[in-house]
């Protein structure tokens, strides 16, 4: 990729060299860091060279971190006029060859939804970090929540697939940001890092990997003569500046990229491929963390910030002699249905603590026959270990 406006001219260090120089100050260290900062640093590890965003609590620290880092790695930081402009410029930058990121929270994520569909339809790799806060609307702007689970899946109109990972520690903010870039590039689809205000503002220990140990994937570049929008499940990305006169449109298009919006068969073939390129890899994409499920009679299943008190509750209940298992969803979408179904076969009841009114628990119900008990909590205050323990002991809701 040619160096963008933040890079050096001919003869200067390449963006890869600048990134390596920059990461020397971080790699290999064990340090104390905030979730937003770790996610931002993860983007640098991933080779992100374009970040555009609009200020919003609780995601702004990512912009502050990257406004400082991007020039040092030869990338661009753009403070855009709104979230629609942010995601739009991210998509433009991706077609220009950059790995590109934006970060926001619920209100901004809502504004971005049309562009999420555009990125799906045009098969544009890009990453969106949604640091969930308490909604709907402006809600509790400074308080954490997990209410965007379904928006991350179905926020944009039309049929599509979603690639969504949800970190529950500062370490994971970094690691899963890298994975979001890898998934996005591999499948040519937007990927969403579904954070929350709790994990984003949490400060805890993080081990920063050596850059050489971080596995990075790039988009399938192919040759400029390749079919840009078809021919195989994930076509080559014939980006701008390669002499291919590529035509990119959010309208229904043929495999050569040209619009053909009135033909049923063209739309059917296109959208089914866009969905199946991810859905057919669903099993491979399942990501859960599972503990104490061998002897479990009941289980606690959670994700993101709610997984932290969930694990604490499981440990405390087990100390008290209860056979309680633990499952944490790392990948939310595609939903890890096989792992959840297996858990449902082993236990008689699954508790689902989440900071919303049951968005994940309803999904769990679809794949298990055992009892599912939602432990919902909203209002910006995370679950306590005691609340979840009492629910398990009492056999029902707190």
């Amino acid at each position, binding site marked *: 990729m040619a160096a963008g*406006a933040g890079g050096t001219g001919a003869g200067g260090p390449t963006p890869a060299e600048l990134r390596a120089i920059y990461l020397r100050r971080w790699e290999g260290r064990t340090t104390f860091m905030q979730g937003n900062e770790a996610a931002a640093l993860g983007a640098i590890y991933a080779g992100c060279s374009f970040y555009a965003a609009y200020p919003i609590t609780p995601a702004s620290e990512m912009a502050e971190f990257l406004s400082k880092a991007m020039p040092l790695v030869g990338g661009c930081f753009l403070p855009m006029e709104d979230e629609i402009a942010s995601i739009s410029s991210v998509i433009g930058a991706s077609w220009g060859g950059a790995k590109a990121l934006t970060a926001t929270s619920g209100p901004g994520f809502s504004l971005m939804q049309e562009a999420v569909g555009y990125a799906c339809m045009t098969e544009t790799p890009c990453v969106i970090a949604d640091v969930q806060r308490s909604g709907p609307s402006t809600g509790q702007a400074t308080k954490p929540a997990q209410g965007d689970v379904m928006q991350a899946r179905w926020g944009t109109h039309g049929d599509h697939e979603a690639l969504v990972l949800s970190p529950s520690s500062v370490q994971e903010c970094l690691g899963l940001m890298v994975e979001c870039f890898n998934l996005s590039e591999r499948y040519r689809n937007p990927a969403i890092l579904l954070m929350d205000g709790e994990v984003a503002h949490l400060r805890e220990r993080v081990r920063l990997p050596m850059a050489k140990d971080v596995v990075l994937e790039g988009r399938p570049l192919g040759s400029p003569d390749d079919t840009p929008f078809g021919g195989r499940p994930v076509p080559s990305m014939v980006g701008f500046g390669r002499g291919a006169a590529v035509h990119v449109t959010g309208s229904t298009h043929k495999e050569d990229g*040209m619009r053909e919006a009135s033909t049923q068969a063209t739309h059917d073939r296109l959208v089914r491929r866009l969905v199946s390129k991810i859905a057919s890899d669903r099993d491979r994409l399942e990501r859960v963390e599972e503990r104490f499920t061998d002897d479990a009679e009941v289980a606690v299943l959670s994700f993101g910030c709610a997984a932290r008190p969930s694990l604490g509750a499981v440990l405390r209940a087990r100390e008290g002699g209860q056979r309680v298992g633990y499952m944490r969803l790392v990948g939310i979408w595609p939903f890890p249905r096989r792992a959840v179904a297996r858990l449902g076969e082993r236990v008689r009841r699954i508790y689902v603590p989440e900071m919303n009114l049951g968005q994940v628990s309803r999904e769990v119900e679809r794949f298990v026959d055992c009892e599912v008990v939602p432990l919902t909590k909203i209002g910006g205050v995370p679950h306590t270990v005691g609340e979840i323990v009492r629910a398990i002991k009492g056999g029902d809701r707190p």
Partner: protein
Amino acid sequence: MTGNEGGEGIRRAPSHLRYLREGTLPTTFCPGCGCGTVLNCFVHTLDKMGMEPGELVAVTGIGCSSWLLSPYYRGDTLHTMHGRAIAFATGVKAVMPDKRVVVIAGDGDLAGIGGNHLIHGARRNVGLSVFLVNNQIYGMTGGQVSPTTPAGVRTTTTPYGNAEYPFNIAEVVAAAGADYVARWTTYHVRPLMRAMEEALTTDGFAFVEVLSQCPTNYGRNVGMPTAVEALNAFKERSVPAEKACGMQAAELEGRYVVGTLAKRSRKEYTSVLREASEAARRADAR
């Protein structure tokens, strides 16, 4: 205006066809639409400048005039979401600062739903060449009132007459800080091509408003059902910008001020980004 000046006569394959995806022709524009004239001026300008199709990245919005570039332009083309062309183009320009990035879209797209991106693009002075084809109506959707429809005009959504005042969108862009702003009409093809050339050679944000006719969905509402009537109106009602300076607002009512409306040379956005990045790296290295 045949593009064949110099006594070569009519060519079978005029050189400007190399800018077009010939398989997409003829265009889908309505009879009498101004878009054909704008496209003709655009490719003739590129031809005159000796630019190759691949030197441009074309970015469009949604609407009839966005079709000028998508699908007809034969170069890398980003047909974006309604109103967001400038934001997409800003991302392209930031990572491909050496490319000439061209945006063509309509009044509903750039001045209506995308008005915010337009003024911020001008404020940043990002190096885009933006051509706003202003037909004063939402044409593609059937002739609904737009932000540039004159007051009082009946449209499909102002059956009792437009209750709103129109944007003077070129003045808005000039006030926002664009390096180059001009307004012409589809009648003024020669000065329009000169303005296009100027816009395509301006480092910073360049903006040309092209008043254009939509006989199908606008002209018939205002008593000008054919292109010829609209072009005559553009001819008769136009006032050169230099002359308009000395005229009262009342005198300019119903007139089109044409010419260069702003010309300055602030530093272009991506070159500022590049210098700032280099300075940051030098400071970091110390």
